[in-house]
Every structure is written in C-alpha cells, then in structure tokens.
C-alpha cells in the first residue's frame, strides 16, 4: 500500500511509510475503542433481556444505541481521584499497561488474508505472550491502590493466571500442530474451502479442545464466571475499586479489547478464520489458489467474516456472564488445573495420534497434513520466502531483506 502511494501519488517514501503506519495503528485503535462502545451497549441490552428488563431505551432514539457514548462523555467529565496512600506512578501507569498489552496483541492479529498490522512468523505465540501482559496492569492497579479490596483482586488475578495459562497454551498448540505453522495467516489459509475444513471439525479431539480453549479464554479475560479479580458483589470492584473517570474506562477498553481478541483468535485457530462455511469466492472463481491476488472486495468479505465470528464469540461470553454464577477461587483453580489441563493434554495426544494414523481425515484427501506443509517449506528455498518478506516490508519501512543463503 505504501508502494502504491509512492508510485502513483508521488509522495516521498518516508511520508507514505509513516502515513501507512499511522493508518494501521489508528485502525486497530478504532477496532478496540469503537468495539468497546458497541460491546458495552450490547452487554447492557443482553443483560437486561436475560434479566427480563429493557435496558437502555432512550439515548439516541430507539434501543438506546448511543448509551455508551453518553457514558463515555460522563466518564470524561468525572473527577480523577487517587487515594492518599496510593503509589502515584504505578496507580497512573496501570491502566495504560493493560490497554497497551491489549493493543499490542492486535498488531499481530490478521483480519483477512493480508489485512494484518504486522504479519509475524510466530503470530499465535506473540498474541498469547502479549495477552499475558494485560494481567500485569491489573496486578499493578491492585497493588498501587493501597486498598484491601484492590489487593485481594490482584492476588486472585495472579492465582488465576497461574492456573489458566497452562491449559490455554496447550489448546493453542493444537491448531499450530494441524497447520504446521505458528503464523496466524497461514493457519487461517489452511482452513479455506468448505466449512468442514475448519479445524474445529478436523477430528473429535479438536472439537472438544475448542471448548476447553473457550473456557480458558474466558478465564484469561476475567469474564464471569471467572471475574474474581473484579467480583463486584464481594470486593466492591476488585482491582479497579479506586479508579474513576478516564483511567477506569481504559481498563474497560482493555477488557473488551481482549474479549474481542480471544474470540478472534478462537475464530482464526478453530473456526475457519476469514473463510466462510461456503467458499463463495472459490465457487465464483474469484480467487485461484492463494488469495494473494484476490481483489479487495474479497478481503473486505473476509474481514466481515472474521469480525462476525469474533462478535458472536463475544456475545456468547456475555450470555455466559449473565447466566452462570461466579466461581470461588479454589473452584477456578480446580476447573483450570484439574479439569482443563488433563482434558487438553489428552486431546493434544489424541490429535497427535489422529495426525499420525489418519493424516488425511476420515475421507481420504480432504486435509493436507502438517508434515506435508513443513516438507513443502523445506523444498522451497529462501527466494520463495522473500514473497512473505515483501508483505512484511510493506509495513516496516526500514526492514531490509538480506538473502542469507545466497
């Protein structure tokens, strides 16, 4: 895209690179902030309907669809309070730590074939690693608030992290194993075609492990029934008891951002990413093979596909929140360590055996196994890889490709 600006619009190189970088960043920021607005409204409406109420009805005309904007303005106008005993620096910095972690994870998240901030070779790994940083903000906030409620929340959060990260990592490894790559774009492309190609339908084990992943993802974003760090009926508001105004809303943007992120990750890893259940584009002959030359309309369709799947994931999270009661901390640890971890481990072994003995699936030739992918990677030399490099250098201006093996 930057090349397009340089060649056709005649802009200087540095300006087009910067413009594209800023554009990507702003787009991602808007996904988080705009998404939070919509999701908070949806959360209120869903909560209300589940509790047999109406929810917001007035602001913005019908359905109260401007309610979260009004809330946002109210939050901006609120007084920014800080407790006397608080550690000022940590108290101020904590919401931004949470928000930045959520934001950084979005950088590596592809929305369609090459609609991705920065295509990383280890995309899955990066997203999971950065998501773990969000917890750091929560713990900092809990400690720095100089409040017992907050500290309790932070401690619970820490205990929860230790328990959910193990099964979450195991669940994420399974699609990586099936696709033979940690690149989220490659994982998504492997599931192209009919809906039966989605990794959730690959074999019975992946079908079960998807639900384990979803449970752990729910725990990782602090949503009920795992919202122990917040626990508004026990700890006032947990780690953000002492926060108000804009800082408080940063925590919420981070939370809704992460909810969207883990749902999008679930969609990419298990639910066919940006591929619909019916390969409309292939049937129409719009794309041949790799989608590198696919027209922009296809990518827009892919984006909508992924956003739709991720939104459904978030809505299900809301449904669960307003349906299930909160677990106790020991129950959370039991769920994650005693149930999710062994199930994930068994399913992991199952998928491995399935790959070994039924590599093509029940119907022969319906899947390409991971070993084939890796061997294909070996056969093509580094000049083939430089195609990916071009996509990379599209985003990072100063990235110079050095042909190592030449």
């Amino acid at each position: 895209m930057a090349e397009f600006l340089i060649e056709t619009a005649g802009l200087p190189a540095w300006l087009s690179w910067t413009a594209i970088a800023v554009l990507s960043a702003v787009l991602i920021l808007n996904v988080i902030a705009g998404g939070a607005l919509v999701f908070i409204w949806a959360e209120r409406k869903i909560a209300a309907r589940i509790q047999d109420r109406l929810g917001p009805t007035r602001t913005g005309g019908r359905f109260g669809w401007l309610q979260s904007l009004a809330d946002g303005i109210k939050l901006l106008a609120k007084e920014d309070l800080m407790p006397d005993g608080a550690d000022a620096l940590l108290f101020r910095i904590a919401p931004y730590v949470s928000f930045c972690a959520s934001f950084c994870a979005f950088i590596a998240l592809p929305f369609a074939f090459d609609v991705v901030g920065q295509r990383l070779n280890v995309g899955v790994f990066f997203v999971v690693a950065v998501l773990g940083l969000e917890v750091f903000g929560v713990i900092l906030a809990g400690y720095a608030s100089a409040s017992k409620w907050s500290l309790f929340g932070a401690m619970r959060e820490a205990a929860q992290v230790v328990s959910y990260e193990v099964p979450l990592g195991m669940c994420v490894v399974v699609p990586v194993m099936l696709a033979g790559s940690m690149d989220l774009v490659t994982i998504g492309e492997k599931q192209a075609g009919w809906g039966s190609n989605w990794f959730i339908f690959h074999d019975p084990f992946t079908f079960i492990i998807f639900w384990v992943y979803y449970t752990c993802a729910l725990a990782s974003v602090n949503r009920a029934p795992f919202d122990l760090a917040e626990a508004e009926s026990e700890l006032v508001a947990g780690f953000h008891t002492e926060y108000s105004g804009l800082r408080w809303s940063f925590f919420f943007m981070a939370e809704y951002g992460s909810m969207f992120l883990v749902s999008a990750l679930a969609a990419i890893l298990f639910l066919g990413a940006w591929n619909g259940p019916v390969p409309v584009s292939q049937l129409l002959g719009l794309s041949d093979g790799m989608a590198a030359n696919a027209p922009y309309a296809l990518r827009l369709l892919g984006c909508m596909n992924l956003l739709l799947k991720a939104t459904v994931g978030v809505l299900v999270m809301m449904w669960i929140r307003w349906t299930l009661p909160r677990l106790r901390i020991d129950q959370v640890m039991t769920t994650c360590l005693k149930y999710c971890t062994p199930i994930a481990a068994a399913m992991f072994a199952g998928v491995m055996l399935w790959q070994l003995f039924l590599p093509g699936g029940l119907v022969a030739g319906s899947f390409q196994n991971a070993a084939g992918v890796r061997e294909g990677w070996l056969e093509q030399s580094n000049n083939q890889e430089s195609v990916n490099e071009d996509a990379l250098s599209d985003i990072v201006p100063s990235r110079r490709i050095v042909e190592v093996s030449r």
Partner: protein
Amino acid sequence: MNHETFGLSTNLFAFLDWHDFFFLLFAGVACVAAVMVVLSDNVVRMALHLVLSLGATAGLFFLAGAEFVGAMQLMIYVGGTLVLLVFGVMLTAQTQLVALRTPAGDRVIAGILAAALLAVLVQAAFSIESWQKPGQGVATAPTATPLGMALVGVRVDQVAEENLVRPKSGYLLPFEIVSVHLLVVLVGAAYLARAKRRRIPRSVDLVASADSTKPRLPVTASSTLVAGGPK
C-alpha cells in the same frame, strides 16, 4: 508533489534511519530501566522497571527479525517477573519491608562485580571481527521453523551444502534430558512442600501424647490457631 514544500522537518524525517532510531530507543529504554531496577527501593516498582527493561529487549529481538526469541522473551521473562512480583508483594507487603535499603558494603561489592562483568562483555563485544550495522543483520522471516528443525538435527540454513541427505545429531536428547530433569525437580519441590506441611505435629496432639491423663481443655492459644480457630 514537491519535496521542498515540507521544509526542514522533511529532511529530518527522510534523513532519519528508522531502524537505527528504534534500535537506540529500545536499547535506551532497556538500559535506563535496568538502572532504575537497581536504584528504586520499592519491590513493585523494581518489578515494573524489570518488565520494561525485558520488554525493550524483546523489542530489540523483534527489530532484528528474531521474532521467536522476542516472543519467548515476553512469555518467559515478563511472565516470570509477574509471578516474582506477586511473591514479592506477598512476602514484603508488611510495612518494614516496603522500602528495601541496600547496605553500603553490598553496593560496593555489586558495583565491583558489575564493572568486572561489563569489562568482560565490552571486551567480548569488540573482539567480534565482522561487525554489522544494525539493520544489516536482519534474518530472513521464518525463525521458529529452522530452530525447531535444528533441534531435531536438520539444519535448514545449511540446505545448500549438505543437500539434506541425513540429519546430523540434534539437540533433541539433551533437550529431553533437561526437561525431564526439570519435571523431576518440580515434582520433588511439590512433594517436599506437601510433606513439610503434614509433618508439623499439631500442638493439640503434642499435649495429648505428653500427658493423656489430663483433660485436653483448656487448649492453649497456639493450638487453637493451628487447629483452625476457636469454635
């Protein structure tokens, strides 16, 4: 569009090598944060600075194209610091330990050690013959796959010379030995932690075994605590 219309800032931006800029930025953040870890006296602030320093190091790895190592750095060190922080808070949240003061003698010893290490590292760094400017050493994109293949003995980066006929001995066996060793250590630690807690004789039992003729009540204060508080 005319370049000159952008004025001085144009030249500055166009002149700036972004790779160098980000290298210096990450390196600077890493160094300053590392110094702050030493200088601050609050455990949680130390942890924050440590996370900053390690995160900036991860940024350096990403800048060099070593994405796998960068993500590893984030996952292990930053995640590990998190757990460290929690223990730090749990163990030192009492008032007397909130501010950690290092004795002057320790500072001197630490300073000497750090200076010696720095001297060794600088010497090692300047003894490298083929220095590359930052940005010259960017590796080709996939880093995880060659690493994994090398682990089992297939050196993908030497495909041209060896023609991939037979794999050399990899690091799989040492890796497995280390991982099993770590597992044993973990299991042992868990066992010790459990056994220790169970071996503590409850003072109720002590009282009972010492003199069984006397009635157990009244129970001492310490035994009530161990037994789970008064009824």
